[in-house]
């Protein structure tokens, strides 16, 4: 069991994606300091992301690896890090023209993006409260700077401040929760918490339970689960469209991946009141998200409520716990990433860079299919995926989640999910119907200045997302086997958390 003398080396190998990303953040920062021109800075950012993404494949041979007590780089972490990096890449591409292209000075944006991605990466790899908080803060501090990046305009600034306050508040909840759990158990490592609770006659006492509840609420803020969802629509509407895409995907995805790992490793799912509360949250999230989306007239707000509801669906899969849940959550999150990036990508491409003028109102989309068929086609595909219609990843994702939930006999959440999806069809169809309507393009043609053409990079990105959406929707078997091994590993880890912990400690 003794590690070989050159034990450092594999650790570095395993950590290389995160190290490379931090490195590229520094390089980009230096580059931005010396060369005040966004194009090379963006190129560097993209190169850094590609490099870090490529390095994900280095540690695969090593298998699951615990690096210090803080981080664990198993296939689960690697999968989500890959997802986060890819999403950041897309967002970076979308940001360039949106923030004014080579005309404007928006280099600092890319540093923030890289740091936020790093925060997300640390979150999904963390196995300790300290790294959890570290990653979270890295992510949210970068995020509120990103949201308020167009700082001379009112809406983003307002959204940024809202996010700042709420992020601070939720971090406070989290910290307090962690402290309470620590107070009972005296450890901050997920695996150790799990082993302690797995011992006979050992369960969370009132302290620990309150702590767990606080942790879950803190995370629920980030995930915008009902009753902690109030901030979402305002911030989605106020933030620049590509950044909204980032919040909707990276920030939420990383949090959910972390939460699942925590539940599996620390055995939190054995605590009845918490799982009961979570299923209640899932049910209300689905219903509230879908019902409130019906009342919206702004596409960004509709998508915001839709993303609330989507997180509710994810939570239904999450509640199944075990390998199947990890698999379902991973697939659904991948589908959700692709879909949300695509949807907000279209919104970003249609917008003119000033968030006040983001293509928000439904009227902006009237007849879109007839003058910009490709863009409207992409958007339609994304919306159908959100609605869970076949040929898209969203359908397979919903299938996965339902399969996980039904295999765990979670009947109430399943029924609510079905009802919620049926409701959601209405608001997705509203957008689609607007895009395909032929009557209103005449009256609107005059007010709207000639449409901004999408840049080549944007077109390629959107096309790639759509290709992925349909490709993996028709033939999910390309992705499923790797998810399966990953899920078995992470769930197995939970069962044998004792072993994993001991083997690291025995060094």
């Amino acid at each position, binding site marked *: 069991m003794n590690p070989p003398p050159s034990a450092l080396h594999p650790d570095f190998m395993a950590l290389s994606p995160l190290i490379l990303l931090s490195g590229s953040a520094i390089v980009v920062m230096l580059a931005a300091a010396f060369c005040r021109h966004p194009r090379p800075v963006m190129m560097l950012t993209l190169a850094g992301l590609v490099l870090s993404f490529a390095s994900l494949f280095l540690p695969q041979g090593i298998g699951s690896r615990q690096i210090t007590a803080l981080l664990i780089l198993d296939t689960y972490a690697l999968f989500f890090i890959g997802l986060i990096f890819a999403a950041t890449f897309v967002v970076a591409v979308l940001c360039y023209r949106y923030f004014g292209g080579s005309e404007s000075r928006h280099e600092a944006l890319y540093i923030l993006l890289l740091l936020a991605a790093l925060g997300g990466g640390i979150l999904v790899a963390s196995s300790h409260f300290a790294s959890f908080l570290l990653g979270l803060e890295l992510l949210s501090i970068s995020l509120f700077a990103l949201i308020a990046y167009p700082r001379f305009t009112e809406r983003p600034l307002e959204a940024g401040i809202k996010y700042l306050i709420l992020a601070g508040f939720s971090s406070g909840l989290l910290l307090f929760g962690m402290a309470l759990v620590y107070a009972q158990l005296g450890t901050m490592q997920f695996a150790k918490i799990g082993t302690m609770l797995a011992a006979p006659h050992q369960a969370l006492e009132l302290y620990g339970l309150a702590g767990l509840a606080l942790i879950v609420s803190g995370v629920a803020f980030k995930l915008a689960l009902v009753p902690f969802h109030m901030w979402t629509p305002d911030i989605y509407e106020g933030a620049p469209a590509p950044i909204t895409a980032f919040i909707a995907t990276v920030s939420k995805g990383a949090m959910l991946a972390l939460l699942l790992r925590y539940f599996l490793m620390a055995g939190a799912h054995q605590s009845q009141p918490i799982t009961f509360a979570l299923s209640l949250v899932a049910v209300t999230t689905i219903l509230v998200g879908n019902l409130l989306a019906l009342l919206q007239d702004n596409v960004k707000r509709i998508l915001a409520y839709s993303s609330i509801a989507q997180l509710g669906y994810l939570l239904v899969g999450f509640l199944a716990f075990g390998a199947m849940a990890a698999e379902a959550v991973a697939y659904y999150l991948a589908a959700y990433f692709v879909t949300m990036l695509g949807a907000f990508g279209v919104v970003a491409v249609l917008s003119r860079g000033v968030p006040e003028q983001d293509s928000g109102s439904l009227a902006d989309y009237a007849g879109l299919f007839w003058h910009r068929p490709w863009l409207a086609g992409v958007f339609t595909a994304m919306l159908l995926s959100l609605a869970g*219609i076949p040929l898209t990843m969203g359908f397979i994702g919903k299938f996965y989640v339902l*399969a996980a939930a*039904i295999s765990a006999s979670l009947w109430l959440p399943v029924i609510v999910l079905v009802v919620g999806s*049926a409701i959601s069809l209405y608001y997705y169809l509203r957008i689609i119907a607007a895009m395909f309507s032929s009557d209103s393009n005449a009256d609107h043609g005059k007010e709207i200045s000639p449409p901004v053409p999408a840049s080549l990079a944007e077109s390629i990105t959107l096309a790639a997302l759509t290709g992925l959406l349909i490709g993996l929707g028709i033939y999910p*078997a390309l992705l499923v086997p790797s998810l399966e091994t990953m899920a078995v590993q992470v769930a197995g880890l939970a069962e044998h958390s004792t072993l994993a912990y001991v083997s690291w400690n025995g060094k």
Partner: protein
Amino acid sequence: MILSALIFILVAGGMLAWMANRWYPGSAKWVALATVGIELVLTIWLWLQFASAMALPAHGGWFAETRAEWIPRFGVSFHLAMDETSLILVMLTAFLGMVSVACSWTEIQERAGFFYFNLLWTLAGAIGVFLALDLFLFFFFWELMLVPMYFLIAIWGHENRRYASIKFFIFAEGSGLFMLVAILALVFVHYRSTGVLTFDYFELLNTAMSPSTGLWIMLGFFIAFAVKTPIVPLHVWLPDAHTEAPTAGSVILAGVLLKTGAYGLLRFVVPLFPDAALQFAPVAIALGATGVLYGAFLAFAQTDLKRLVAYTSVSHLGFVVLGIFAWNPWSLGGAVMQMIAHGISTGALFVIAGILQDRTHTRDMRRFEGLWSVMPRLAAMGLFFAIATLGLPGMGNFVGEFLILMGLYRVNSVLASVAAVAFVASVVYALALVQKTFHGENKHDWQLPDLSGREMATLYSMAAITLWLGLYPQPVLDAAPDIASRPPAIAVADREGNAE
């Protein structure tokens, strides 16, 4: 192989039609016609093959089969198979596809490429539904055909198209999700008892489950099929969708999409859950009988021609539900016959309504009157199909309804006599249709061109098929599920005992 070809020809044809229309405007309809033409020829060839293969004994009922791995993780395979029932429904689909291309020939001028793309993809989805024997694949096609149908209604429909299309989509899709849950529940029940995770129809047959589980899962399937068929409390989307759809959309909706619901009841609900279906049969039969009468009475009260025809569909499909849940050789033969005959005759009535609307720009029957003198050929066809709809002997619908009532009488004589009242009601609405539209004086001074050659060819061929079905129904009756040779047969004797 041939089975996947049946689907992929339509898929490819749809994309080709769309693209072709960008390069050569106006070419889409030719591409679409060629595609459905090939499809029809293929199905007829298959039918001839089948007829000769039938001479050989011990064929197991399944004529052609394709199977390939799809998502091995869940035991999902791309599994298509064809027996007599699916073959005859595929033939109906191909034929009505031809009809719908023909009746859109001049009606659809705008965005024709996208129109034919949607039309062909709807047909592809429907054929997929009729052929799929993997439950996942079945659901995949089931949902897939809704999207292009939605676009057909939402883009090329009439005045109230947005409302109707969204209503249609939410009903069909939402109920479909209940079926998805039921499918998954069935699969996991099967997994728990056998340890095999599979969506395959044959393996899921005879899954052991407790009666209450079986009933709940069956209800999940039943809701989805009841919306599509439609069975009465869940029919509310239908009049709107049928009325607002373009002619081709109405033909496909009535002729093909409603049949997918009935097919689902026939193929999945009863064989997969024989016990639960037996237990549930009285309710389903009562709902079917209600539908028969309700549809007929409401049809009589309509002034909108297409809405009238739409309500007759509710009535006719109620007969199909009766036939399926009575589950004996007579009623099943009648149900299949009714499905085919209704597809043709209602399709023809929608074509006639479409022609009238195209020329007069109204569907309001109060504004017609006296069209016989202006359009004698159209009026004659209208009379012919109205009579077919009311079930005059010699036409397909009569055979279907008669056999269903005969079968039902053995199970439940009271409801059979109630349903028979519909014969009277259907005479009333069918003759009202003819009287209001074609008879009387031409008070509104309509000056309209009569049927063109294309329209005559369409309607005459449909009339010929209706007559053929009525005079020589045996081939279609053979296509009904042969309950003697299938394992999940509900014991007829048992049911007869209950009825007494």
